[in-house]
């Protein structure tokens, strides 16, 4: 069990690390690559959970994660970036440094919240949850610090990976597969949405700032 625990811990930790990498990125292609990595680690983590919990249905979840989160969606995002020709920098709000610090603080917060309270949950899920929470929070942080739709999608995706991790970590949790499917649908919609805007030629960019210009309330 010791080894199992350590590996699970390491994988979860790796995801947090990947989240930090996401925070750090300021170029869309690189961002998407890290996202790919994020999804890949998630797949690994879920698979490992499936192994140590000996819960076969988790393998399916892992496969879905690999397929959707590590391959399909990043690919789609890549295509968007190509089509829109926005390889330029992602305008981040309030420089990288402060953002990283904020991320640190969030990790600390999530540990502070989680570790004491799940004391008598079993250690695996316990640390899993704690790290998953920090991944979720960092995901949100990414969303609010990126001005560009693709960046926000990336943030949302990582947030969702965090949740998947938590779901997988919760021992014997049913419906994990269904949930991850449902979630993939959500993501798909988001990506499609961006495509829609592109295809309908309404916005020459998916930069939300442009999208915000009109308000129905404005005179």
């Amino acid at each position, binding site marked *: 069990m010791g080894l199992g625990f350590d590996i699970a811990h390491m994988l979860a930790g790796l995801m947090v690390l990947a989240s930090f990498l996401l925070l750090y990125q300021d170029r869309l292609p690189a961002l998407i690559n890290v996202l790919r990595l994020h999804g890949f680690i998630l797949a690994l983590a879920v698979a490992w959970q499936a192994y140590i919990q000996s819960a076969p249905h988790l393998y399916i979840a892992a496969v879905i994660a690999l397929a959707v989160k590590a391959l399909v969606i990043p690919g789609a995002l890549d295509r968007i970036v190509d089509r829109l020709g926005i390889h330029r920098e992602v305008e981040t709000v309030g420089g990288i440094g402060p953002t990283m610090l904020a991320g640190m603080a969030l990790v600390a917060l999530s540990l502070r919240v989680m570790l004491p309270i799940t004391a008598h949950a079993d250690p695996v*899920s316990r640390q899993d949850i704690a790290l998953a929470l920090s991944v979720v929070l960092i995901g949100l942080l990414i969303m609010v610090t990126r001005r560009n739709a693709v960046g926000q999608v990336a943030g949302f995706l990582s947030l969702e990976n965090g*949740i998947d991790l938590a*779901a997988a970590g919760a021992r014997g*949790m049913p419906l994990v597969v269904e949930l991850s499917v449902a979630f993939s649908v959500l993501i798909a919609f988001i990506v499609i949405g961006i495509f829609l805007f592109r295809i309908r030629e309404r916005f020459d960019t998916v930069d939300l700032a442009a999208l915000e210009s009109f308000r129905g309330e404005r005179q």
Partner: protein
Amino acid sequence: MIPLAAVLAVPLAAALLLALIADYRLSARINIAASLLAFAGSLSFLFHRPAPGALFLIDDLNVVFIVLNTFVGFTTSLFSAGYIGHELESGKLTAGYLRFYHAMFQVMLFGMNLALVAANIGLMWVAVELATLSTVMMVGIYRTHAAIEAAWKYFILGSVGIALALFGTILVYLAAHPVIGSGAAGMLWTVLLAHAKDFDPALLDTAFVFLLLGYGTKVGLVPMHAWLPDAHAEGPTPISAVLSGLLLNVALYALLRFKILLAACPGAIAPGPLMIALGLVSTLLAALMLYRRRDIKRLFAYSSIEQMGIIVFAFGMAGPLGNLAGLLQMTMHSLTKSAIFFSVGHVAQVKGTQRIAEMGGLTESHPLLGWTLVAGVVAIAGLPPFGIFTSEFLIVSSSFSHAPLLAALLVLGLLVAFGALLLRLGGLAFGPVRGAVGPVRASSAPIFAHLALVLLAGLWLPPPLVAWFRHAASLLG
């Protein structure tokens, strides 16, 4: 099982069917028929209920919601039949979109009904997400710049909310896990509630934070409310009615379920203060937002936020009176607000705009619409002889005795909001006639049905109904 099938399978089947039918008149009729069936099915729950199973659970609490949900769904389908035809003629929608619209309408109803009858918190989450996605589709259906933007905003904020809710759900499962053990049992209401007292309270607290923010986004609580006004304003009016009348309730229902769970766990924080705080903030901010509105549907969307604030406040205050008042207020608000949106829809179609500045003197140009609008606003403002008066009477009077300051704040919010609504009403319903004065062709039956119910509730609440509400209130602790 028949009723359950009526409530769930019928909408689903109807959705598939409607997706295939091109003629919008026919599909509108089918839409109505399906909604009526669902309503009938839900009514039968009043007399006998299927035993709680692994997937579906029907108890006193959600029966209130289901009946309300299917009824408003039905009346809305009636209204939409008249409304949507006009949209086609005015060229705002094409036949293809109408097909999509009707299909989505049923999907939406299916999602909401499923969320209400789900016995499994995971299933409920999926259902809420389904309902959200379908409404997103509807909001964006006009494909105008503003509509797509509103849909996008709704979508992003909603998705984040959904995600938070899911995380909360997982945490709940995790809290249950040590007590109940692995497996689906750990996500069943009945089981959860039975063992709630042994859960790790701190973990439940964290879970509730996520659930409150997650589902609270759907309820439209400040500061997660931003999607609501635009979604109401830019979508087709039937959808605005459904959003205000139903979707908010469904999200609220989810919230209440978890509140019960927390209440059952001795060590956990009392969810009351959190809800009271959010409710007050929502009421006060929405009340202020009302003053600068120029779009009539946005105006009433913000009033929905305000109302939701009051309702959440009431449930936060809890106590037999508080919960009862909350349920009553919620029911009355669904009926009233959808009625308001019905007449607002007609008005907007007649005037060809949603800008308040371009409509006026309705009681003179369209007495029927004008006076129903007046009645609606009077009702929503909590004035007699309408039902919301009763619920607000109970909320304020019961909360003032043990939390004077909070009640005073609530009253302040109510006053400010009323000031804004009355100001707008003065220009809309009275004064010189402004804007087009063409005739209204759609039927006003749904409006009258709703207002009549609200009026009846204000004058006389049938004792069985109240007994039933009271039982539901007692479930809420």
